[in-house]
């Protein structure tokens, strides 16, 4: 018995030891795997570049199984972000390619930022047709989310639209800003609904069979035509008695909820980057500031399960821009909007205990008198002060690299483009349209100036062959956009890069450049198995007015058997100290 017990113990101890060894191995290695999974950009000890870099398409539109609808709470995000902190992942954006750009994905499609667009293309925006077909519109329902008076219709083509009515005291305001916003967000690259400004005669409407309305008590009952007439009773009319409204076409696919601005959707295998580390969601703050999109929040997004070329996946939309610019959806924008969160304890305390002597500076802003413009202006607006209705986790993670990316896209909107976009709002008062155009242009100028000059603004890196050899040429976006005086100088520091290990070695000393170009020295690191070699240039900009530009842009060159290209651009985020090459 003793020997049997001993044998049993031996078996168990051996198994236990094996288990512990295995667990220890797992614990020791698993975190490393996880850490390298998505944050390779930050890792210096790992392979930095792959043969297909830079990628311009993130293949997150792979076929996935159907997902269940999951609606977010309308109030949770406000409560959580106002009184808590939801961000778990901090650091540089993760979904960027090695050129510091955002690849096309189910979230974003590069348009104006990467390619030229005609004004016609921009004005067309996401729209695939001309809006609801003429004839009878069948009222199919009345969504109970949001505050804008609205109902859904099905036109004679079978397309479904959400009809959003303008408030009586602010005719044309929400409908115009919504259409204008979709044009801009679409040109930037976001997925947005197709929005149209329509006018219709109430006699066009009839109620679809089975259409229901949810009462204030939460109960549902059939919609009657008298309900519809009531909804329209206060809607502003055009001179010919028709009703002007916004028609927002149902997005394609099956709506499966909304996306959060933090974390990932656990039932979507394609969704691997924490949303607070998605460049296009962080950089959205720049565009939101431009357009005063203070209502940028999760419940104003759509996740739709779509099918494209036989693949089914979740596409992510921004929606509901009725509170943009000077609009507050059912009234003019609150003067606080864009300047102060709904709840800011310190400001409330100051306001209360100063007996009114503490004045928010935004109370000095002056707005146009025209009700079709609401409370929007460009004189008092300052990009760095701009805020959403409550803390927005992805916006709060925006770093200098994100904002430079976004501001570079904003800078691509020319004045004629903006003029044409403003015209899509179809304001009946030409003077109002002129004012709105002016405000849009000046706010665009402000966001571009602030966020382009906030960091070392070098861009347009390219390899050029000159008589003296091969050089790395670049441009200074701030100077090109006339945001800074054409003075200053550049200093380059070269390092060789072992791409397999990520090891960098200083090569030579700092080189003062004669202009926006640098001769490429023989600073190549060891060849990888494919025979490819890499070198890194750290380029500082010395400008008397912008000391922050001394933080270098890191540019990685790739040498494939003598064919050199720019494979990596890493902009300073604003969080790091000036890089000292001897640290490597």
């Amino acid at each position, binding site marked *: 018995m003793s020997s049997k017990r001993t044998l049993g113990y031996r078996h168990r101890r051996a198994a236990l030891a094996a288990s512990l060894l295995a667990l220890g191995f797992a614990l020791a290695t698993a975190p490393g795997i996880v850490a390298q999974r998505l944050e390779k950009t930050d890792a210096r000890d790992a392979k930095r570049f792959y043969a297909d870099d830079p990628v311009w398409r993130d293949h997150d539109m792979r076929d996935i199984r159907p997902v269940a609808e999951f609606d977010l709470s309308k109030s949770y995000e406000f409560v959580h972000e106002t009184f808590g902190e939801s961000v778990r992942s901090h650091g540089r954006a993760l979904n960027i390619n090695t050129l510091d750009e955002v690849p096309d994905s189910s979230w974003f499609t590069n348009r104006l930022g990467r390619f030229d667009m005609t004004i016609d293309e921009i004005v067309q925006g996401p729209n695939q047709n001309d809006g609801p077909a003429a004839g009878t519109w069948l009222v199919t329902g009345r969504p109970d989310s949001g505050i804008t008076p609205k109902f859904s219709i099905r036109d004679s083509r079978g397309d479904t639209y959400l009809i959003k009515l303008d408030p009586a005291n602010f005719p044309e305001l929400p409908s115009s800003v919504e259409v204008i916003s979709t044009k801009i967000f679409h040109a930037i690259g976001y997925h947005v609904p197709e929005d149209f400004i329509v006018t219709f005669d109430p006699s066009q409407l009839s109620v679809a069979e089975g259409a229901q309305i949810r009462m204030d008590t939460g109960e549902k009952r059939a919609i009657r035509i008298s*309900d519809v007439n009531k909804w329209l009773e206060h809607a502003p009319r055009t001179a010919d008695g028709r009703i002007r409204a916004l028609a927002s076409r149902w997005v394609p696919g099956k709506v499966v909820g909304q996306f959060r601005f933090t974390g990932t959707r656990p*039932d979507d295998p394609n969704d691997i980057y924490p949303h607070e580390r998605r460049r296009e969601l962080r950089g959205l703050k720049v565009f939101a500031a431009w357009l005063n999109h203070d209502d940028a929040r999760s419940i104003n997004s759509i996740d739709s399960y779509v099918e494209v070329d036989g693949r089914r996946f979740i596409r992510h939309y921004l929606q509901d821009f009725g509170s943009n610019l000077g609009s507050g959806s059912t009234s003019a924008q609150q003067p606080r909007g864009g300047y102060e969160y709904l709840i800011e304890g310190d400001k409330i305390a100051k306001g209360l205990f100063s007996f009114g002597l503490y004045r928010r500076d935004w109370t000095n802003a002056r707005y146009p008198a025209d009700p079709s413009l609401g409370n929007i202006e460009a004189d008092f607006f300052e990009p760095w002060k701009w805020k959403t209705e409550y803390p927005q986790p992805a916006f709060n993670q925006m770093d200098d690299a994100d904002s430079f990316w976004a501001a570079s896209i904003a800078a691509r909107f020319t004045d004629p483009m903006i003029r044409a976009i403003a015209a899509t709002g179809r304001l009946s008062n030409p003077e109002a349209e002129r004012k709105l155009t002016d405000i849009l242009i000046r706010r665009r100028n402000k966001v571009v100036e602030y966020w382009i000059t906030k960091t070392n603004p070098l861009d347009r890196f390219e390899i050029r062959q000159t008589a003296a050899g091969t050089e790395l040429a670049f441009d200074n976006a701030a100077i090109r956009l006339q945001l800074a005086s054409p003075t200053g100088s550049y200093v380059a520091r070269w390092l060789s890069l072992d791409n397999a290990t990520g090891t960098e070695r200083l090569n030579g000393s700092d080189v003062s450049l004669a202009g926006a170009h640098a001769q490429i020295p023989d600073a190549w690191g060891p060849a990888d198995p*494919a025979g490819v070699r890499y070198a890194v240039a750290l380029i500082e900009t010395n400008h008397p007015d912008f000391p922050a530009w001394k933080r270098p842009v890191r540019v990685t060159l790739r040498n494939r058997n003598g064919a050199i290209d720019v494979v990596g651009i890493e902009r300073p985020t604003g969080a790091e100290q000036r890089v000292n090459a001897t640290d490597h």
Partner: protein
Amino acid sequence: MRFVHALQSAGRSVVAVGVALLTFFTVPSLAAAQEQEAKATQRADVLAAERDKKATEVAAPERSNVEQALYWYDNQYLFTRIMNGWKGFRLASGQFPAGAGTGVGVGFKKGLGSPSNALQQPRAEIEAIAAYTARGYTRGGAAFTVRPIAGAALDVRVSGQYYKFPQEDYFGPGQESRSEDRTNYLLESHEGSADILWKPARFVDLGFGVSYLSPRIGSGTDSRYLSTDQIFDAKTAPGLDEQPDFLRGRLSAAFDWRDNPLHPHSGGRYGVELSRYRDETLNAYDFRRIDIDLQQYVPLPNRYRTIALRAAAVITDPQSGNDVPFYFQPTLGGSRMLRGFREFRFRDRNSLMLTAEYRWEASWLLDGALFVDAGKVTGDRSDLNFRDLDVSYGFGFRVHSNSAFVTRLDLAFSREGFIPLLRFEHVF
């Protein structure tokens, strides 16, 4: 036993080995993923591997407990059900005077001829209310309203109500009444009314109404204080010993150009109401009454600070040989008038009250206020002047939405001490 022990021992070994095997099979797969990543020559492969891995881990999204609770709240229409009711039924306050105690009430409102959630008020409406408080305050009533009449902004309302207020305070007549003389009495009444409200122009409100009132006075039920009839008599409390029925006619007019009546920052409201009370049974209490209420809101440089001014006066004029019953006399004190004094603290035939309030917006939902009130009651109309006014002062907080007032807390001081006043209504 040995067999059992052997089985247990073998079982544990199997489990341990199983764990080991599982671990060894799992970890290599993770390691393989790492290796695959290291060997990958394409970034697309690395990302695809990530997505492959996540595909093995997909799970339904979940809500935290707090989110779950808020999601439930969002979709249960709890607030609207409480405020707007269910199938016409809703919670109702009973609109009792201050000091009525904690109560509960049920209201019913039903629109006729149009949906209950319409943007505009329904064409016709029936309302009913029943409310009761721990101190025995009771109210029950019903009303029927029709609007508009003949296409005009005209409301016709017919209503009836019964109420019983068993602990109403009475301190005696005049400004010199003493707080130590606090007594309480029962006020009970049946009332039937017909009213017409007409809004002929944007800023103008006109009203006409006829009511039949059957007030009755009894002993107060608040045992902390004497009943009014134990200290006062018909001379110091006219109408205490006998109460007639009244026919009351009233005319009112108001010019209201406040920017937002629910949360005004500018403009004003100037209202006057003329009432005639005709004693239907005793011919001893015929009187006329004039209520004047002037409100002005002066925005300081911007709309975030406001000076709110109010002057209110009530003048009663009994027919020759008649008197004004004490329970229909104007009062000062409480949350609406002369806030540093208790509700109904001063009472007489005439009253005058002046208020100045400095309000400032601390945030979009909270205002602060500093205020000073001054007022007096007089038995003789000729004494209705600005001399010897009682003064109260204090500070307060007003919680509101972007467009409407929600609640008001005032901390008021006077020669009789400090009173906190909480009201869930807009006063001025």
